[in-house]
């Protein structure tokens, strides 16, 4: 099963390689990983999307917790949560396609953030399904490039991590 795990870490030198090294060294897989500082400059938050049976996910969480720089580990499969991803897509936009692309952009509530006579660069956030759907709609037009942030997630409700 697929799990999204948030990891709060001390913002120390080498912490990212400790996490990624744990995954590669133990043969766990990472589908996506995103990292940035939190409101406290001494901590960073990582969101890791990984896959495995119950026992493996359990090991992943325990092993993460065991790392000295890890403060907290939350498995979003265990709670109600919201998940989002940001995507940038550069798509071919020759004159006859431009209107069609804009229609898609509109339907998806995406935005064009850069344009040339031959291309649009589109920005959109959404959950995974929506991001994938956008890519599928644009694929026939000829996608030149995409960049995705990987998922970030947060529990629903008033409580903080």
């Amino acid at each position, binding site marked *: 099963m697929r799990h999204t795990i948030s990891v709060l*870490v*001390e913002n120390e*030198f*080498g912490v990212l*390689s*400790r996490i990624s*090294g744990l995954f590669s*060294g133990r043969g766990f897989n990472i589908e996506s990983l995103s990292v940035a500082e939190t409101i406290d400059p001494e901590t960073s938050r990582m969101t890791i999307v990984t896959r495995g049976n119950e*026992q493996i996910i*359990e*090991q992943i969480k*325990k*092993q993460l*917790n*065991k790392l*000295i*720089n*890890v*403060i907290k580990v939350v498995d979003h499969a265990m709670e109600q949560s919201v998940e989002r991803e940001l995507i940038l897509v550069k798509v071919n936009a020759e004159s006859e396609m431009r209107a069609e692309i804009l229609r898609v952009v509109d339907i998806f509530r995406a935005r064009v953030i850069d344009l040339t006579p031959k291309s649009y660069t589109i920005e959109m956030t959404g959950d995974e399904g929506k991001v994938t759907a956008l890519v599928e709609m644009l694929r026939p037009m000829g996608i030149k490039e995409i960049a995705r942030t990987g998922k970030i997630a947060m529990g629903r409700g008033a409580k903080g991590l």
Partner: protein
Amino acid sequence: MKKTGAQILLESLKLEGVDILFGYPGGAVLDIYNELFDFPIKHILVRHEQAAVHAADGYARATGRAGACLVTSGPGATNTVTGIATAYMDSIPVVIFSGQVPSALIGNDAFQEADIVGITRPCTKHNYLVKDVTQLARIIKEAFYIATTGRPGPVLVDIPKDILQAQADFHYPEKVKMRSYNPNYEGHHGQVAKAVKLIMKAEKPVVYAGGGVVLSNAAEELTEFSRLLNIPTTTTLMGLGGFPEDDDLALGMLGMHGTYRANMAVTHCDLLIAVGARFDDRVTGKLEHFAAGAKIIHIDIDPTSISKNVKVDVPIVGDVRDVLQKLIKSVAEEDIENFKKTLAPWNKEAAEWKATYPLAYKQKKGVIKPQYVVEKISELAGDDAIISTEVGQNQMWTAQYYKFKKPRTFLTSGGLGTMGYGFPAAIGAQAAYPDRLVIDIAGDGSIQMNIQELATVMQYRLPVKIAILNNHFLGMVRQWQELFYDKRYSSTCMQVQPDFVKLAEAYGAKGLRAKKHEDVEKVIKEAFATEGPVLMEFIVDQEEDVYPMVPAGKSISEMLLV
């Protein structure tokens, strides 16, 4: 008053109670060595950095305190890697200090630069690159704290040369404050209660005790617990010494070269009480058949050990000693007499297994059997002697035939299986206990991996005894070739060997050799009566095998017995 980084390091070590530093100098650590010259910490100059870590590791295993070592950057640091990985696999508290090129040069492929923090990340419990001299004291405090608490392990501190020369005020922190590291020692009462229920319902329980018993100083509690309930008790290689081998309840070691009775008892038990053990593949054999009909209670300080290989029924996370104390208290309130009565048939069965296939070997006239040498050493060394081993047959025969009675008297590389470990580990133990008898039981292959340390024992008058069981083979590998590769002894015959007696003499040590069965006792006695280091060479039966043996991948009840 300001102090340099080098001074801060040594002052901190003193405050940590470090009395011996095992090390080897070089350019990046010259400032530390300059301070060490007249500093009240004893430095033992080894002859290879791998030995510095093993010695610190042996010191830690024997004393229960963290071992410390010091090496230079680049090759000095990379030479420590095997020692660090060895300590990591067996959860031994060692703190390694390495010099590093000056901060400004890091990343430039400077002379003798190696990214030792990167290299050792997967084989240390934690490691540090010091970037600011004002942080040095705190980092050292944390390093010792992390190494010795929770599940212990090695911690490396990499210090660039400019940090050693820079100055700062020195305050050694009293306490460690880390929001991300707070090991839990207390076993959960609810889980303990559940465990007691399972125990009282059992009719065929077995205690399976690992290195955690030794590490948490719980040998006494374990012995009390097993005796209180009459539960047969087996130990892993790392657990040896955690339970007295001469006790009626002792099943000996289990696993690949475990005793018949230990493996049978685990196979047929209805409750397995795992105490500070981690279900290593050399112990379990084929997992599906390991204690297949049993409920499992697992006590361990490290949550990642629990349900990693085998699903357990009652996990108890906590310090083994604390949990055993709680268990003893709780079971005392139950009907112990009745419980023991229920166990009587099971105890009888265990006794029968012991009688059916006791550990045994066939004595041939005149020829020295390696097992006999170990038995004799065990008989003559006394309960306080500290035994280390190398890796291979020598290690397994020691585990099988040496009667360990006390914790911290057996030093062996269990997890990594590092040839070359035993001799430097013995040096570390001997440095900690100059008056105790310390013996490295070795193979002729392994001893050559760190034989250069003979110079170290001579220089510091460390009276370590070495007993080489010389079979002229890389014996354990040859045994596998014999059993599973049609006796094709590819590269396992040591066709050229030094004259070990002369080699010892070349270093100024005493060398003794036994070629016949009749000489064994005499040689051992003479060695033990000698004040300085002695190397004993026993010319043993060349193709003797270690039995019982569970072929890799088989279940542990499928033992080859001869």
